[in-house]
């Protein structure tokens, strides 16, 4: 069957099998390997992408269900080799170790902050609880997301300082 989605802002058509997950289509057919398979059962969050504004575990969503949807993956964040400020924040706060979970955390955080730019530290902590990380102990990940949220929440006059 044919699948039509908007992937990172670009309309894409792909020939897929009905039983394929969105993760399988992204990785195997569309060669977007930034989303990872960690568990295959929607528990670890390494496969998280943003589907129509919501962070979802792409290993548990059938690609066929995404017909007509907008899908944002980690590959869609940096523009012209310029990092997204959330990616920058992850680097600045040391929020990365092995990196396997990193894209999933960034996509979860992005969806949260698009919905709720002034999210508190507690809300950030709750929002990422579906993403597992074995290396970092989450502290620097939360710091990074919080710093980006704080930058978002600043009044426009202060921007650029």
């Amino acid at each position: 069957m044919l699948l039509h989605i908007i992937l990172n802002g670009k309309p894409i058509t792909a020939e897929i099998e009905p039983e394929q997950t969105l993760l399988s289509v992204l990785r195997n057919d569309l060669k977007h390997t930034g989303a990872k398979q960690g568990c295959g059962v929607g528990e670890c969050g390494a496969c998280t992408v943003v589907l129509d504004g919501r962070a979802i575990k792409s290993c548990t969503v059938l690609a066929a269900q995404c017909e007509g949807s907008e899908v944002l993956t980690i590959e869609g964040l940096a523009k012209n080799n310029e990092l997204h400020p959330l990616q920058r924040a992850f680097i600045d706060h040391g929020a990365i170790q092995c990196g396997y979970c990193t894209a999933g955390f960034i996509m979860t955080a992005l969806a949260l902050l698009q919905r709720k730019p002034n999210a508190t530290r507690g809300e950030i902590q709750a929002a990422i609880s579906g993403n597992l990380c074995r290396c970092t102990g989450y502290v620097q990940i939360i710091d990074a997301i919080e710093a980006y949220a704080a930058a978002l929440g600043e009044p426009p006059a202060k921007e650029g300082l």
Partner: protein
Amino acid sequence: MPQFGDGNKTDKGFAYINRSVPRVDARDKVTGRAKYAADLEFPGMLLGGALFSPYAHAQVVRINADKARALPGVRAVLTFEDIKKEKSWGYYTYLSGRLRYRGDVTAIVAAEDWHALQAGLNAIEVEYQELPAVFTVEEALAEGAPLVHENDPECEGNIWSHSRYKVRKGDVDEAFAHCDRIIEREYRTEPVEHAYMEPEAAVAVPDSTSGLMTVYAGAVNPYFTRRWVADVLDIPRAKTRVIQQTVGGSFGGKEELMGLTAARAALLAQATDRPVKMLVSREQSIAASTKRHPFTMKYKLGVNNDGRLQAFQVEVIENVGAFHMHEFMNFRASVHAAGVYEIPNVKVDVYGVFTNTVTAGAMRGYSSPQLIFGSEQLYEETAAELGMDYMDFKRLNMLKPGGVNACGQAMDSEIILPEILDTLFEKTGFETKRKQYAAQPAGLIRKGIGMAMFYRGCGLGAESPDASAGFVCVHDDGSVMINSGIVENGQGMKTSFTQIVAETLSVSPDIIHFIGADTHTIPDSGITAASRSTVMGAQSVKLAAEELKAYLLETAAMMFHAKPEQVELKEGLFHLIGVPDAVIPFQVVCNVHHWTGQQAGVMRWYKPPALDYSMEQGGGKAFPTYAYGCVIAEVEVDTATGEVDVKKVTCGHDLGTVINDKIVEGQIYGGVLMGQGFAVMEKLVMQNGAIRTNNFDTYMIATSMDLPDIDVVLFESSDEAGTYGAKSVGEPATEGVAAAIISAIKNATGLHIRSIPVTKVELKALLNRQNAEGGSAAAAARE
């Protein structure tokens, strides 16, 4: 030595280390560009898969792959009958008809796609004869127990004889005969899953023209992986190339199943002459990868009424599962078994026992998380029996500068443990809280605070040669390329090594590029483990950078018309000493250096000075230096449910010299959660040798909602054994955490916990028993 940190920063006079710089691999990882083995694709690539054992112990009576081979899309099926050797390098089996645990594999398949692969695996006909199995050390050591390995010269029954290590100091029997009291206790720990986020994956790419087999793998030790591949194919190491892809976490674990997966992929690649990608599912990974060794620790302690320890004896028995390649762990275990205490008479015996369960292997700590839990609880129980405050007891017996540790090593370097304890106690209000919580009235929620103190021998020590290769070269444009036989597993070594070369040359880390592990580019430097990388492994790149710098100084001297000793390289500029304006940029010298044909690259080997330790006698100088640490945990125990809420963890670590504080803090935060899991969360449930908790829906590792408030205090010290004075931190970060949490649960509930993990189910059962035995007696026991 002061603490490292804001407002009280040590100044060791470094320009590029002793500070945080962004990770060199960060950009690739935040953009999704970093390629893990599963992300790779090659033209004509097949998918490989393995048929794992459905039994804990069985003999294959008949296997027939004809139907599988005839299926469309199936390109190769190899059973154990098709390969030359079953037994692997490292004592596992590549493919076998005798299945000793559920991670054993009878056959492998390569197919065009996932559907064909599954069909192929399902079509293999296997007739098994189930054999009697042993799962616990008690079963394995019982009279007449079924043998996991028959006629094996390495075994005495099910005991793995090669794994026996011991320590002997003084005469424990004499001391037991004369001391005031003898305390005997037994503690146990259960297996722990590494739970790296990336399951094992490998891609084998054959080249029939050159005969070279290249394997791309997320291997913790590309050289071990190469051994497995070369061994199974029976080809020289020089024709076997392992290129390490970005590793999605290891913690000691991506070794055995990783190597076997690479070997199995290579077998299929050889059979089909096509690239083969082999992915291990999470369920397969948990079933077949190694776990932290479950320990049974049987202690006998001799102590006088004044609290002075007289004799320490322990028998440590490990359930190593069906196979094992980590006898060396028991050297470390034997040296550290008594903890950071001075005891005149010590007898330690450590050995592994084979069973038909999941195999045990290296996992962050390499015996120390188990032993620190056991010995710290033992000392806590002993203090309680003596009616002594347990900190008075610990301080009385702790190892002090100039003392002799349990394996007889004179401690001739700085011991900053007292300073760490004082700082952490003040920060947490430890002693006040401890007394207050011990006296709290019985209630639904009970608070507790506990501590563990420990030390860790840095690097491999007398275990095996701690040698490594390091490479540094400059290009004509002034960019620098470095490499090491030590590898990045996510811990940040590429960044730390880059900073160390920057410091040595005195150039910005921004111009340094780390090549990354490829067994065809740098000699085998052993395993990246034992928290040895920065401490010892970086010495070789430092030596290479020093030598290269000397060559560059000669070129600069020629350009200045001066002698090399009149020239210095400082922060990217060559200076003629004493002449303020005589300055040449680094890249200009590199350009001349190249075009005048000077040596532009150096590979150096570093092997630390030999240690005087006797495995036969069980004693001596075991490690070049030790890192000291203390963890204080604060918990709330819900007595209705048995749930332990870890509220706060305060960690003090002796880093020697901090290379990159953000990386160190990241190691410690992650180590705390791993220790918390070991203590109260991570229960690996097994039935008849099958792991029931085989994915993250049932095997519970900490999420962000389990995160306690973590306070990290970094201390520096003066010992110069490690690179720029650095000490280990990767494993110290986790090794004392479980012990501190268990100590806090004791403070909260009065319960001495003798087996971990203690999830809410186990703790509730212990609390129920305590209630049945009488609440008042329990309250009295809470000190």
